[in-house]
């Protein structure tokens, strides 16, 4: 298979398969979670559950007081690669063209040289969190195969994107095909791994805030 053929497959059937697995998989995970339900709370509320839920959904993006000092690398590495990943994904001109083709929406792009720098910084941050996961006693102890799979699935689109942009390793077309395929792998793995937190973090933050909010506690 030539680079062009691979790219055509990735952009055509590959993308369709990945999108179906992604959408159906995420839907299944949400449904099986939703069906579990929650018991009613008969204790007289002191505060508003909904207000607490919405509050924590946003405030939990900031570290708890003292946490930054206790585990700086987890927080800084985490912030940099999350923000960097989403900027490169959402604000690189060719990505916006792709997203417009899939969703119908489009928005202004950031300059390519800026995306290049942010991409590189994100790659560095991901390498740092991987090294931390392999060497720090707590992270190493908790990690399972799935954690490394999820790491690789996040890392590969950034790496192949960087290679394609700079015409490194192999010809542009093949590298672009690998880049699209790595993105499709990421889509497929979201419902199959902890990458599902992309969506469920909103539910868990909401419940945490709501449970505390009823008691009049801000968490």
């Amino acid at each position, binding site marked *: 298979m030539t680079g062009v053929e691979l790219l055509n497959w990735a952009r055509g059937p590959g993308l369709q398969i990945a999108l179906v697995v992604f959408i159906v998989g995420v839907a299944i995970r949400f449904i099986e979670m939703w069906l*579990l339900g929650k018991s009613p709370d008969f*204790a007289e509320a*002191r505060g508003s559950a909904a207000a607490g839920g919405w509050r924590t959904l946003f405030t*939990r993006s900031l570290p708890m007081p003292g946490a930054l000092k206790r585990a700086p690398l987890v927080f800084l590495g985490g912030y940099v690669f999350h923000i960097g990943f989403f900027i490169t994904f959402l604000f690189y001109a060719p990505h916006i063209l792709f997203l417009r083709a899939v969703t119908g929406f489009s928005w202004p792009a950031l300059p390519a040289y800026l995306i290049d720098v942010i991409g590189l910084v994100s790659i560095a941050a991901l390498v740092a969190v991987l090294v931390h996961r392999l060497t720090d006693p*707590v992270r190493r102890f908790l990690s399972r195969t799935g954690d490394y799979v999820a790491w690789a699935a996040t890392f590969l689109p950034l790496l192949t994107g960087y290679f394609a942009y700079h015409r490194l390793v192999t010809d542009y077309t093949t590298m672009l095909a690998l880049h699209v395929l790595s993105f499709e792998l990421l889509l497929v793995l979201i419902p199959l791994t902890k990458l599902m937190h992309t969506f469920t973090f909103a539910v868990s*933050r909401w419940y945490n805030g709501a449970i505390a909010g009823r008691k009049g506690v801000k968490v």
Partner: protein
Amino acid sequence: MGTSLERGIQGFIEQVDRPTASFFESCVRCGMCAHACLFYTETGDPKYTPIYKLEPLRRVWEREYTLFGRIKKWLGLSKPVTEAELKEWEPLVYDSCTLCGRCSLMCPVGNDIVYMVRRAREGMVAAGVAPDGLKQAATRAVKIGSPMGVQLPALKTQIAKAEKETGLAIPFDKEGAEYLMVLSSAEIIEFSEIIPAAARIFHAAGVSWTFSSDAFEATNSGIQIGSSDIATELVSRIVRAAERLKVKYVISPECGHAYTALRWEGPNLIGRPYPFKVIHIVELLDELRAAGRLKTEGMEDEKLTFHDPCQLVRRGGVVEPPRNVLKMVASNFVEMEDPGTLNWCCGGGGGVSSNERADELRLKVFSRKKTQLDQLGVRTLVTACSNCRDMLEDGLEHHRMDIKVVGLTEMVAEHLKQ
């Protein structure tokens, strides 16, 4: 497979609800919860990472409630939780978790980890896997009426003593009183100063109150060991007494878990709202203060600090009332580092204080409280939970620290305007 293991797994299955599933779905194993837990910060042992304590529950959730987990189970690719594993996890779920809930504040994806530990204990108890000390406390609570084996005559003796000391009649089984006062066993045996203190304060503030001979024990070993059946039985005793006496309020004493049991879990355990309200004694003192009914004179002038009971602040929402009340009688009140909802546990909550096996670990992790207190250089530590008080005294003695622990209600009573 033993039947007790089956009951345990079934217990886990029943405990998984939508919030639990969302928490397990969201965990990225970043390990931040470790840094919120004093059992990790004071030992450096990764096995004390809070989310790891939930591994048996997580595996049951994955096998039973996720499509991919069920496929893996069907293909024989995942192992069921074994009895040996439950036993291995027992010290993690009980000895090294005080249900303090600090981890639930730390988690970046927002997991309420302690919510799940409380639920995991239901499965552990169903499998019969729980510390002996806690099992015995729960058995005494159900059979005798108190985890420490305290019975009505002991309370009556303390009340007679308090009546003699204060010259006030302490009401018993008074129908139509506004408030029903319940106590923790520790307050009847060790910290009985609370009884004359409450009598004097309520008399001065004109509060209509009573004790009940049917329900005077507020602590709830069922909540701590994680048995809803036992917890329901213990809460129901108070509910029945409150309904019979037609009180408007039940006063939760200076005991953190009693407050959680009565205020937040109780109505859900009995499956209906109460016809009365539950108020913590410190909340009541603050209400009396705000209404101008609590009048004090004189101040404690030496530097002192307040230890926040976890169940009162982080799990209970009573943060400002103790501070408002303390400031009435203390001129030099200073906050510890991480006050209020950020507080660090005394180390003995969540049933750890009833579990002798955990003593060594509990005293080791008291180093967190020691560090907080050393930073302030205080000689007096005020709190509003008799279990915290007991644990603090034990920890201070073990670490050879010369600090006096005082209950907030008693401190207020000493400054009542004559």
